[in-house]
């Protein structure tokens, strides 16, 4: 029953927070744009006024791509550097919007303007970023251990197995195991983020493990929702691949048409993601309401009026919370440090607190 409620209520929350979906799609699109422009610039530079690139009638013409790379090694370096830089920036962007999206899905009272989502997200950005780091480190460590284990096991199979089927089965098993582990690590991170927003947790590290504990306690509904997320994402990827493979993009009109179709697919993917967060909040609320009567939602870090406020109003109306904000902590530390220099007055952050 709780799973059905998660699906249903999560969907309603997603419908309410449709701007969060748009925002999520926008973030990836805006991030991808500079990379593609960089590629275009480098491609033009490499190809110059040759007609060569017009032979690229299909997506991956091995001759064209390889020749451009062979003859222009600098192009590859520039593109790889650009993509890496963009991945880092994108991580920051995702951390910036994540909290707002969860809050928008969780709190019907919150105005769902993009500005409000960004504003609220900004309050959680630091913790989300740290949690992302925790996730990344865990994935790298666990992934590394699994790769080493797989290598040892497969090497053993290579030496002892009578046929490659055993090795391939071992590899598939490790692959499947890896997917499951990866899936759990991500799901725990999701519930860690929900903890941060719903519970107001300060420590990203602790939030991650609290999220993990929560997920494991309610593993059936939680894992089912993440399975829907994974299935939906794969379905959309497959749909995209089919369209990309079948349609020849050889004019501006086709580029525009496929752009619209592709962005619709990305919107659906973002919707599935927000839906997943919405359902996680539903599960969290349901569990907390059965054990702790109130409150089900942590106080908003910003006092946001149902009437859409200005950005300055949002920023200035941030409430005092029970625990000092991390920024306040840092300020205190800095104040202690700066106390050694009495002639200088501590600078105001420009943010008034009431």
């Amino acid at each position, binding site marked *: 029953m709780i799973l059905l409620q998660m699906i249903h209520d999560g969907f309603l929350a997603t419908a309410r927070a449709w701007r969060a979906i748009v925002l999520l799609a926008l*973030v*990836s699109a805006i*991030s*991808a744009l500079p*990379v*593609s*422009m960089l*590629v*275009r610039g480098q*491609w*033009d530079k490499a*190809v*110059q*006024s*040759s*007609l*060569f*690139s017009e032979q*690229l009638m*299909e*997506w*991956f*013409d*091995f*001759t064209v791509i390889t*020749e*451009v790379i*062979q003859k222009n090694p600098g192009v590859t370096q520039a593109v790889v550097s650009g*993509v890496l830089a*963009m*991945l880092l920036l*994108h991580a920051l962007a*995702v951390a910036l919007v994540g909290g707002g999206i969860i809050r928008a899905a969780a709190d019907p009272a919150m105005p769902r303007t993009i500005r409000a989502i960004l504003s609220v997200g900004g309050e959680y950005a630091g913790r989300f970023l740290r949690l*992302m780091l925790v996730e*990344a480190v865990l994935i790298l460590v666990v992934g590394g251990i699994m790769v080493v284990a797989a290598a040892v096991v497969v090497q053993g199979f*290579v030496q002892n*197995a*009578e*046929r*490659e*089927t055993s090795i*391939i089965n071992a590899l598939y098993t490790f692959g499947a195991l890896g997917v499951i582990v990866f899936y759990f690590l*991500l799901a725990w991170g999701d519930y860690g983020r929900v903890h941060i927003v719903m519970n107001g947790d300060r420590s990203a590290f602790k939030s991650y493990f609290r999220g993990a504990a929560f997920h494991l306690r309610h593993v059936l509904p939680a894992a089912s929702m993440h399975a829907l*997320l994974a299935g939906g*994402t794969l379905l959309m*990827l497959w749909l*995209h*691949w089919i369209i*990309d*493979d079948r349609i020849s*993009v*050889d*004019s*501006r009109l086709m*580029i525009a048409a496929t*752009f619209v179709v*592709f962005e619709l697919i*990305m919107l659906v*993917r973002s919707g599935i*993601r927000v839906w997943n967060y919405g359902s996680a909040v539903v599960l969290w609320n349901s569990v907390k309401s059965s054990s702790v009567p109130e409150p089900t939602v942590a106080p908003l870090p910003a006092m946001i009026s149902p009437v859409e406020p200005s950005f300055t109003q949002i920023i200035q109306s941030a409430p005092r919370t029970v625990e000092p904000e991390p920024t306040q902590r840092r300020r205190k530390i800095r104040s202690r440090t700066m106390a050694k220099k009495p002639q200088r007055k501590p600078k105001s952050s420009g943010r008034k607190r009431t």
Partner: protein
Amino acid sequence: MKPLLLQFAPLAILSLAVCSPGSARQTIFVTPLSDRIVQYSIDVTLDVDAKTLTGRQRVSWRNTSTKPVSDLQFHLYLNAFKNSETTLMREAGGVLRNNTMGANDWGWIDVVRMKTLAGEDLSARMQFIQPDDGNVHDQTVLRVVLPRAVPAGETIVVELDFTARLPKLVRRTGYMEDYYMVGQWFPKLGVYEPAGMRYSTNGGWNCHQFHANTEFYADFGVYDVRITLPKAYVVGATGILVSDVVRGDTARTLTFRAEDVHDFAWTASPDYRVVEKKWRNVSIRLLTHEHRLGEIADRYVRATEHALDYFADWLMPYPYPMITVVDPAFRAEEGGGMEYPMLITGGSLRGLPSTLRLTEIVTIHEFGHQYWYGMIGNNEFEEAWLDEGVNQYSEGRIMSWAYGKQTSTLDLWGIRIGDEEQTRLQYTGMKYPSNSPIATLPWNMAPGSYSTLSYAKTAVVLATLEGLVGREVMDEIMKTFFMRWKFKHPCERDFRAVVNEVVSSRLRDRFSEGMDWYFDQTLHGTEICDYAVANISSSPQRSKRGRFEDSVLTGTGRLGPYESVVILARKGGIRLPVEFRVTFEDGSTRTDSWDGQERWKRYTYTHAAAVTEVTIDPHKKIPLDISLLNNSMTVSPDPVSSSRVAWKVFQWVQNLLSMMMLF
């Protein structure tokens, strides 16, 4: 009076035929296809515990020269794996295809006794020689000085006993547990080249040491081979199975006969599963494994059928009654990708996608060697390109025909790679494409360049030759060469002679002098081929202005059509005639040719519209051109093409970034 030995020679041959069980019981070809200079009769026993072979061999050799020959020279290939100091091991740096030899992995062969058929012991007359490098540790060539020379036209028969230890699978021969790929395993005569044959001026044995980058060279003949081994083993071999006799409870003896071949290889494993299929009158016999039955076995068979079909139409139908295709056992991949007469080894791995056509590439390539090596018996030591390169060219054509030009190697998730493209890119991607000519002894080639020069660059040179003379003339060249030289030992000179003959008769107006100019540059030169469009400029013709002898003209208006100047450049050293297409703003085009001799050439066009595009080699007839990027130029690049690239990148980067949303 004939020497005693030779007086008995006819009797010896008769005895070889009569005493050998299975031999002459079944004739494959009523009319011999080759000169049959040699005849081998071998009894060999495989000891699967010790990994050894014990053999007795009779070999007859006919002196086809006009001079007496005083010695015999044998290849003892297995001795290349005897220790770390052999020529092969030294050249390979002790590492053969990423394999290092372990303490028990070495292999060798000892000729323990040799005598004439009359009983004259030749053992004391045996000596190892090192004709290529003088490396005294190399024992891959054995010379036997005969007590009496073999007169011209006569035949000598010698009998020898040998023991061999198979190496752990290396260079496509040896064992891996109970899988055996037994190639180059018996004492095998070199080729006596009479004066005038190939490059021989005085006549002599052509019997090179076994090098890291060389293969083989031998005379055509007849093989009768009896293999005794444990009963449970399934055997595949060159030739056809004549008899299979069970000996006691544990052993069996299989007799194979092969005619008009120049080598004999065999394989054995208790785990083989046999798949048989008939193509016309040829039996395809696939030796594979239980877990590869089904899809992988089907892929082997289909690829073999494609190759049989193509060669039948292109050159001539496969003449032998059987082709054995060996799918090496798991962890015995080292034995894969090798050609022997009537037997090839492939390569496969369960779990790989079917549109990654590695199995098909290897099968078609190795089958192609049945023609280029198996029947065209060139000297692989000295002119590896003549079989490997020609065969690589054939492989590209067959793969394109059977699996699509752009998809023949890979067609997966929208990523498509063609076999011919892949071959060209192997050459154009060389770090130092000018380091050695193709026509170089392989052991003298610059390190790391043997494969690219002998296989890829040669295939590209031939594909470019096809582009220059056309597919129809190229087919005539290949067929003429094959039919004229099958079951013989042609060399580069013979190939060039056929090319010149066909081209100068079929394309008299263009290449009346033949194609030596082309081969001199591509086979013996190290220059690259690179033509480029250097510049395009157009301006409308204007009326005359200024002071002239009898008047001052002040006209300023445009007068008449555009005058466009196109500059083409030859950036590489290779000179070829090239076509180029000029496109005008009004959509009209014209195609011109440039003899490609000068470093640059200016072309001026007067046309109603300006020139907008120029493309050298628009039909991609010259894959030898090392850079296609500079083969074209447009005055107004179409932004859609780079937008398409950017758009595709955008989609997949957004996809990637969107996956990060999961964090």
